[in-house]
């Protein structure tokens, strides 16, 4: 039986929303990365603007707070000359009891062209894409544990920038994978781009065995996870998981699965270290590694703007 068609593609298989990396063809991912490359130079100019989204209104709908992600989307949209409206919905209408879809209907009536959505529930951007006006585009800026596709894409951009070819790499993703939308997006993107070995590294409470179903090698031993890796993606450990039934303490976590120089030495000598931020120094990663020569954490942020510009300009150019 065939399922419903992928709601982020139009009849010509062109991207009209970015909801998840899962199910996107490799060519689409490469096209986004190539486009991001052309935008990278825009950010280095004196006048950091191109007119691709001039006259368009981009609404940042953050049902869950995230200053950093919202800011990068805002910068990306402004560099494309869009008008950007930031709505901190976590503290406004829905707090007054307005339903998600009523909020969307109201904002659609204000002639929005694009919604950038962050929500604490998996799947919320799908619901919005399903119910907004047909000309409106939706970009998922993180939904529950499900997906954070622009983060996944900027991670791919970073890896491609430093390693060029995906098809010979060993990539280790370390930490709270079960609750991580970044990990899911990275895994889908890496799989699509042909990475032969993706390792999910962490204790069984955060990296359950059934993650194998996503096509990764599960490692419950940090040394095994690090050995010979080309790319190490460290995940942020949420405060609420640092003590309780998932983990006994932040200290024990750092000792067993935190990345320090000794553990990093097990990876390839030219391995790069990535992190989606914000960083907990001394919890999942040692300060010396964050600031060390193998860290590409700050370039990730720079690439993130270009990738978000690429995504917004591509979907805005495709009609439903």
């Amino acid at each position, binding site marked *: 039986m065939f399922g419903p068609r992928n709601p982020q593609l139009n009849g010509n298989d062109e991207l009209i929303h970015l909801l998840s990396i899962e199910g996107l063809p490799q060519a689409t991912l490469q096209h986004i990365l190539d486009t991001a490359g052309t935008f990278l130079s825009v950010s280095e100019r004196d006048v950091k603007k191109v007119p691709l989204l001039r006259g368009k209104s981009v609404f940042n709908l953050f049902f869950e707070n995230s200053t950093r992600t919202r800011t990068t989307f805002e910068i990306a949209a402004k560099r494309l000359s869009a008008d950007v409206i930031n709505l901190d919905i976590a503290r406004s209408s829905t707090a007054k009891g307005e339903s*998600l879809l009523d909020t969307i209907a109201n904002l659609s009536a204000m002639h929005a062209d694009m919604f950038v959505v962050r929500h604490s*529930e*998996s*799947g919320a951007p799908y*619901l919005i894409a399903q119910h907004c006006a047909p000309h409106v585009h939706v970009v998922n800026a993180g*939904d529950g*544990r*499900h*997906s954070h596709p622009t983060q996944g894409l900027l991670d791919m951009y970073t890896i491609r920038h430093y390693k060029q070819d995906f098809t010979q790499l060993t990539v280790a993703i370390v930490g709270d994978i079960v609750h991580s939308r970044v990990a899911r997006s990275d895994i889908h993107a890496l799989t699509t781009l042909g990475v032969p070995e993706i390792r999910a590294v962490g204790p069984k409470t955060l990296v359950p065995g059934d993650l194998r179903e996503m096509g990764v090698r599960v490692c419950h031993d940090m040394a095994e996870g690090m050995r010979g890796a080309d790319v190490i993606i460290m995940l942020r450990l949420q405060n609420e998981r640092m003590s309780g039934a998932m983990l006994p303490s932040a200290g024990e976590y750092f000792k067993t699965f935190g990345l320090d120089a000794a553990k990093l030495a097990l990876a390839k000598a030219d391995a790069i270290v990535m992190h989606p931020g914000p960083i907990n120094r001394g919890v999942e990663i040692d300060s010396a590694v964050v600031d060390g020569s193998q860290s590409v954490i700050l370039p990730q942020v720079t690439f993130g703007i270009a990738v978000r510009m690429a995504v917004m300009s591509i979907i805005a150019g495709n009609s439903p």
Partner: protein
Amino acid sequence: MTRTLITNARLVDPASGRDDAGAIAIDGDTIAIVARGDDPRITDFDAMLSIDARGAVVVPGLVDLAARLGEPGSEHAGLLESELAAAVAGGVTSLVCPPDTDPVLDEPGLVTMLKYRARSLHLARLYPLGALTQGLKGEALSEMAELREAGCVGFSHADVAIRDTLVLHRALQYAATFGYTVWLRPNDAWLGNGVAAKGPLATRLGLSGVPVLAETIALATIFELMRDTGARVHLCRLSSAAGVELVRAAKAEGLPLTCDASIHQLHLIDVDIGYFDAAMRLVPPLRQQRDRDAIRAALADGTIDALVSDHTPVMEDAKHLPFAEAEPGATGLELLLGAALKWGQASRLGLARTLAAVTSRPAAVLARSRGAAESAKRGLDEGAPADLCVFAADESWTVDGATLASRSRHTPFARHEMPGRVRCTLVAGELAYEAAR
């Protein structure tokens, strides 16, 4: 007192295995005569209402062991009148409703009122389950004997898991004192918190998963408590292959046990959630293909006694939310017959065996829970209550929530083709539903 004659019918009685052509004469609320059409008792029967059932099957009315009706507390989603009308439109003449209403069915007065309101509508027969504990809080026992007197056929904790094993132990002891049946959905209070079945789909979509362990641990606990207390238990909404195996073993051991599964678990799997389709937000959550296969086989071999609709009215807006926040449940009373026929056809069971899962077998579970006499007339016996469903077995229809009698339109079976179209339904000899021609 109406005298009704149904002629030119194919009579199917799952209890006896009967499947032949004939006629039924109904006198008042009971089946008076079941015979061949040319039998003089039929030809001489002086009927006030005649139903020509040419091309249709006549079966005992369907018995649905799990249907919520919206009242009291969720009138915006369903009314007693609309949902009981949905029941008879689906050929269901008797239904059991769980106690998780608002307020909870833990007060005899509430039960009396509900039964009275249902009776006055002259639609399907309503058999409420009382709350096993007060307010379904899992702390203090409800007044079971009082509730029984008011008309509760058994005691249940609906979908609320009892956290405290000591309370569950006491509840089973107390129910066993009076021979009451306790209706439990096996679900561990702690492991059972999730919105989808644990597995590849939930992992990919980032939905919190309920492991099979939530069901098997609860089953193991229930069986141990049954061995200790001697209580009789009906298990509700089995969802996993491992659960089916445990039930099969417990039945073989001789524990006084029956169980049901819903039309959702019979036909759907987690993959049907697709891109977060909230119509698939159901309790228990949809599991994997091997679980569905095990449930289909267990319903066929009798390990699972009954198929239920698990009808749960959900108001229009309540599904327009992100998957995890959407209200679980679906309309189902009008889909029970079609779902059974679809399964029966695919499993090549024949009509009598297929329909047993929605007629004689749930009727037996209900009769035992009610404490009805073993000798009571049932099915298409002469002298049995005239609760009948007349349906065209070779007609099919496409499910469309908007055309259902239920006030609630959400169903995961939307756009599915369903076999079998109900022509009319009789309850206690009265025509409770007749399809528009």
